[in-house]
């Protein structure tokens, strides 16, 4: 599903590589925590999958896409098969909940009748039915993140990337979001989540890939955040 082969990424402005000879494979339907301190290369890892960055060396495969080698024209196709959730939600304040979700389909040219059908479905899945016409500012942080997850999932991506999705949320709300991500994972969607949240990683007991200074230092099938941290 996702495979990195000896991937290194060196940014022009830095002497130390952000990723250093990383080789990892993730299967379809896996739930993977990507952990490590700030600057360990988690964000670079995720950006490579989205082809926001191109690796300096090595190859990146997502589904059938040879991400590092593909032409620019094919990049939208790749991104349509990946959903993204961020710490800061990134909702459009001028659009309602339903419009925010519909936006993701509108801009990839989905027909109107598909949009009016699937948007309520996904809002129900994330537990936001009844709040379609609210604006993001009228929602709590947890609800805003649910909108973001709905938007990321509405096109039924193969992979859901979550970059510290609980970073701005209190523990209880974080737990709810994790339950939601688990539910999405159970539909067969691969979930890759970068996080600093010990509690969540420890309680979920899922695969943990730990990065440090751009290298994979640990890859446990049912891991915890780390002993003594």
């Amino acid at each position: 599903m996702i495979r990195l082969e000896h991937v290194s990424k060196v940014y022009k402005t830095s002497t130390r590589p952000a990723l250093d000879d990383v080789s990892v494979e993730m299967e379809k339907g896996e739930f993977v925590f990507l952990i490590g301190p700030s600057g360990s290369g988690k964000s670079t890892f995720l950006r490579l999958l989205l082809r926001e960055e191109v690796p300096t060396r090595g190859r990146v495969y997502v589904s059938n896409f040879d991400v590092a080698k593909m032409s620019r024209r094919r990049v939208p196709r790749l991104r349509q098969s990946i959903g993204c959730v961020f710490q800061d939600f990134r909702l459009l304040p001028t659009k309602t909940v339903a419009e925010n979700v519909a936006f993701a389909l509108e801009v990839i040219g989905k027909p109107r009748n598909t949009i009016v059908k699937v948007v309520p479905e996904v809002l129900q899945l994330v537990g936001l039915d009844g709040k379609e016409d609210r604006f993001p500012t009228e929602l709590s942080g947890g609800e805003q993140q649910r909108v973001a997850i709905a938007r990321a999932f509405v096109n039924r991506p193969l992979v859901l990337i979550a970059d510290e999705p609980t970073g701005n949320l209190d523990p209880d709300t974080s737990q709810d979001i994790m339950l939601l991500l688990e539910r999405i994972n159970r539909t067969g969607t691969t979930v890759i989540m970068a996080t600093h949240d010990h509690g969540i990683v420890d309680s979920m007991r899922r695969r943990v890939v730990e990065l440090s200074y751009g290298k994979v230092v640990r890859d446990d099938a049912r891991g915890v955040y780390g002993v003594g941290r």
Partner: protein
Amino acid sequence: MRTSFVFSEVITGLRRNVTMTIAMILTTAISLGLLGGGLLVVRMVDKMQANYAGKLEVSVLLTNDVSANDKDCTQQPCAGLRKDLESTSGVETVVFQNRDEGFERFKRIFEAQPELLKLARPEAIPATFRVKLEDPERTDVIKTAFEGKPGVKGVDDQGKFLERFFEGLNGMRDVALILALIQAFAALLLISNTIQVSAFTRRVEVGIMRLVGATRWYTQLPFLIEAVVAGIIGSVTAVGGLVLFKAFFLDRITRNLTESGIIPPIGYLDILIVSPWLFLVAIVISATTGYVTLRLYVRL
């Protein structure tokens, strides 16, 4: 492609940057208005050249003595001069016009200016040979051969006068076009700047569009259309400006000249003929500028 979506994005974009949009439209309009003015002058000069081509004559003016005493050009030196003119190579026709006929013609030309006619006396009009040349450019032949001959008061070359007039008009055209070019440059920078500002204010949207896999065209098209819409509004304003300029200014100051047939009038038809070019220029320039800006300065 969902057109309704793209257009709603365009309208929000234009509204959000309303001051920049207005600046962009005005600069484009002024630039295109000047370009239109220049093109109208070109049309006017073309029309005038067509009007006068084949009609240009050299006038050999005769002295007062001949004008007063030899109405039919039967005596010397008039008859001799006519013979010499007719036998000069390159001369097509020679028409003698005595003082009375000349005065009639004068009255006809200036019938729109009665105050001028009141002052005019036949005695001021000399008898004239109106000489038409096979090649209207070769007027110097007549001038060198006949100026200073007995009975000749002077040789008047309409072509020379017209040339100066055309030079004046062409100068006006050049000034208009140069100003149009400078304004176009300013418009270009403004379009580029507006698109950059517009892309910046919409960076969250654009970021999301990129992430969910919108194609390049989908992300760029609203910005491009924004620029083109502003360009089209600019060209409509420019055409409107030209119509108003004609109606309230040009018609007034050129009325005498156009009524007496010296210069052809600029009609609404001329503006209509020029305006598609203004639209085309506006669309091409705004679209190209928009595209280049998006490519070079905006990461979409």
